[in-house]
């Protein structure tokens, strides 16, 4: 019994152990790695992925997936920038609506939530598989981003907006604070609320969940909306950090998010995994990228290594499953 528990705990913490080993190895290889400034640097780089991957985790826990987060991130970033800079113009009515910082941000978040809600609607009402529904949204949202920005970056958004991405509070960058709050809320939802239980139940056995009186559709609508909302927040951070909304921002961010989820031990079949796991997964990816840069490894090799780590994580997970 105790041996079994010990093994279970080992399984639970294997990504954390991997992270620690990775950090030790990198500290031995490079004396620039284990410094406070580099640590802050890594956290700043992964903050956006942590936001996006947190939403992705909740979706994957229901046995779903969201491929549209990168495009939603770009669109919402562009909308924030556009509203801040140009407001909302209705030339035919000769009307101009200007936006405050908070107004622009709220507007972008609401649009993000709506896009996720739309994903959820397509998935629940029309029974379109999540992969296909969100693949379509990936293209649609990217198209709207191009239309809205007319293919050009929207830049020079003002210092108060730039503070979100570049500023810091007691030495820690604002994006890291945002990611921390996002993670804490998500941990609370998944561990301590009815919604969290339902998310795990649906991923564990949708049929049984349905027979238990759970409204499957409502839960799915909520998680897809949450996922896209977090993507929108990520978009605002990215835009602010660059002080510019790029029409091709966020490309392949969905893959980074999924990679963090998987490395963190969440099963793509749903029902198994955790937010903390994803956070560690995102940190592993971040540390790996950072370490490889410090070691002057070619960026092309970095991609190979990242892929290999994902494979390794999943294979170790599978072997653990089989032993049980």
């Amino acid at each position: 019994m105790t041996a079994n528990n010990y093994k279970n705990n080992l399984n639970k913490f294997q990504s954390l152990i991997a992270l620690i080993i990775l950090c030790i190895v990198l500290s031995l290889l490079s004396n620039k790695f284990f410094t406070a400034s580099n640590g802050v640097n890594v956290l700043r780089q992964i903050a956006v992925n942590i936001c996006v991957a947190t939403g992705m985790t909740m979706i994957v826990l229901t046995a779903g997936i969201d491929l549209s987060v990168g495009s939603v991130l770009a669109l919402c970033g562009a909308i924030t920038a556009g509203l801040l800079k140009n407001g909302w113009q209705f030339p035919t009515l000769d009307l101009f609506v200007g936006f405050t910082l908070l107004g622009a941000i709220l507007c972008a978040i609401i649009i993000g939530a709506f896009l996720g809600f739309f994903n959820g609607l397509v998935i629940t009402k029309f029974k379109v598989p999540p992969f296909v529904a969100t693949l379509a949204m990936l293209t649609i949202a990217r198209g709207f981003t191009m239309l809205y920005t007319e293919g050009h970056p929207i830049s020079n958004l003002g210092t108060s907006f730039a503070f979100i991405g570049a500023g810091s509070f007691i030495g820690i960058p604002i994006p890291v604070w945002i990611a921390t709050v996002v993670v804490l809320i998500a941990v609370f939802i998944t561990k301590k609320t009815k919604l969290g239980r339902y998310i795990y139940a649906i991923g564990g056995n949708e049929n049984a969940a349905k027979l238990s009186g759970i409204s499957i559709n409502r839960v799915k609508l909520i998680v897809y909306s949450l996922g896209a909302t977090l993507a929108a927040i990520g978009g605002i951070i990215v835009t602010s950090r660059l002080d510019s909304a790029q029409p091709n921002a966020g490309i392949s961010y969905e893959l980074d998010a999924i990679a963090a989820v998987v490395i963190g031990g969440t099963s793509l079949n749903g029902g198994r995994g955790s937010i903390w796991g994803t956070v560690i997964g995102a940190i592993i990816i971040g540390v790996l990228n950072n370490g490889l840069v410090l070691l002057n490894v070619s960026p092309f090799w970095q991609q190979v290594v990242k892929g290999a780590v994902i494979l390794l994580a999943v294979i170790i997970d599978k072997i653990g499953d089989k032993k049980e």
Partner: protein
Amino acid sequence: MLEAKNISKQFSGIHALSNINLTLYPGKVNAIIGENGAGKSTLMKIFSGVYTQYEGQIIYQGNSIKFSGTKDAENAGIAIIHQELNLVPYLSIAENIFLGKELTNSFGMLDKNKMNNLSKQLLERLNFLIDPNTKIENLKIGQQQLVEIAKALHTNALVIIMDEPTSAISDKEVTNLFSIIAQLKNEGKTIVYISHKFIELFAIADNFVVLRDGTNIAAGLMQEATQESLIQQMSGRELKVQKKNLDTKSNIVLLSAKGIELQHPTIKLNMLLSNISFSLYKGEILGIYGLMGAGRTELMEVLFGLHPKKSKGTICIENEFKKISSPADAIKVGIALVPEDRKLQGLILNQSVSKNISLSILEKLEKWGLLLIGRKEKDLTEKYISKLSIKTAENNKSVEKLSGGNQQKVVLAKWLATNPKVLLLDEPTRGIDIQAKSEIYQLIKNLSAEGMGIILASSELPEILAVADRVIVMCEGEITANLKINETSEQEILTYAIQKN
């Protein structure tokens, strides 16, 4: 042709078959008759190499033989046509017939022409004139069955086992199937025919074997048997359970259903349930008995709000009309369903005992409508673990590691936690050991004594007789009888269950 000698088979300590002895004759249609759970399918799975672990001997064509798998049995000439057909819908007839045995030409490429021609010849033997390129999904069930038979002919099967072949086909297709069976018989094939329908058995079978509780009870020539004698043999087990005294049952109606109908999910005109009306009294255990396909499970599902769009009829709880169009509605009016398949429908297998028990009443464990309180959940779980004596080392052990009986108790606990007025139990003791079974029976009786109304759908007559106060017998989606348990007998119930045939 094929002979079974002292065949026994156990599933985790429970005898599914014990000392089966029977002989199947070539050039004859051999009927295997028995109730659900009598051991028919287990025996057929041994013959066709699905189960390779068993005691006893199979004598095939004079030699003792032991199949190492289904492929082995197929090569030896035994083909089985399952009730649910095993064809790939998006492939053509020819591709299905040759699946896994594809013919290639000298370049190693698929020889489509040859396969099509051979398929055509096989189909012609069955008087089935159709282009072998037709996709299976475009065929009717009866036609698909012919493709299965063609597949069996292609492997030169000597023994063809048909499991309930007429359960899903029209009368005209049945006539056609029978003429094909007659033809195969004349070719000297051994046909094994499993069916519940007596009219068919008398029309087509030459010999019969009756199985009951995993043993062979009787065998003989069909023409010397009568329907009454067969029913007697199918059911005539000694009753180990005493009849109950029904005196103190109340006459307060808890649930009443009127005119319940259910459409087939794809075929509109086909009714899975029609004209179902009945009442359930407070403190009553109402059994629902029927053979395969009678509609027991479907009735439970309608009562639980799982078919809001396909079903009709009214359901009243305590004389008050309730609209039940989802499980959530059903739970709200006090109905709980312990579903047929606990692993697929009852449990979240990778989650703990306590998370499973609390799943349908989480709102009762909340503070400020948001936060779940672990303390309350722990109390709830411990209450039911002791009440139902669930054997689990820890509450947070995942339920997949529990035995079948304890898993079923977790499902029961989950539903008792909702404080239902009406408890629907669909095959509550399937696949669990005798100890757990009797504990569950006792629990059901206690619950009814506390005033809960219980509907127990079961395919096992002894279970109904042991537990229920009254039994509704169903046949092909309709109620054929409503009997008091202490005024009826197994024979009578079975007669009603097969009435329509």
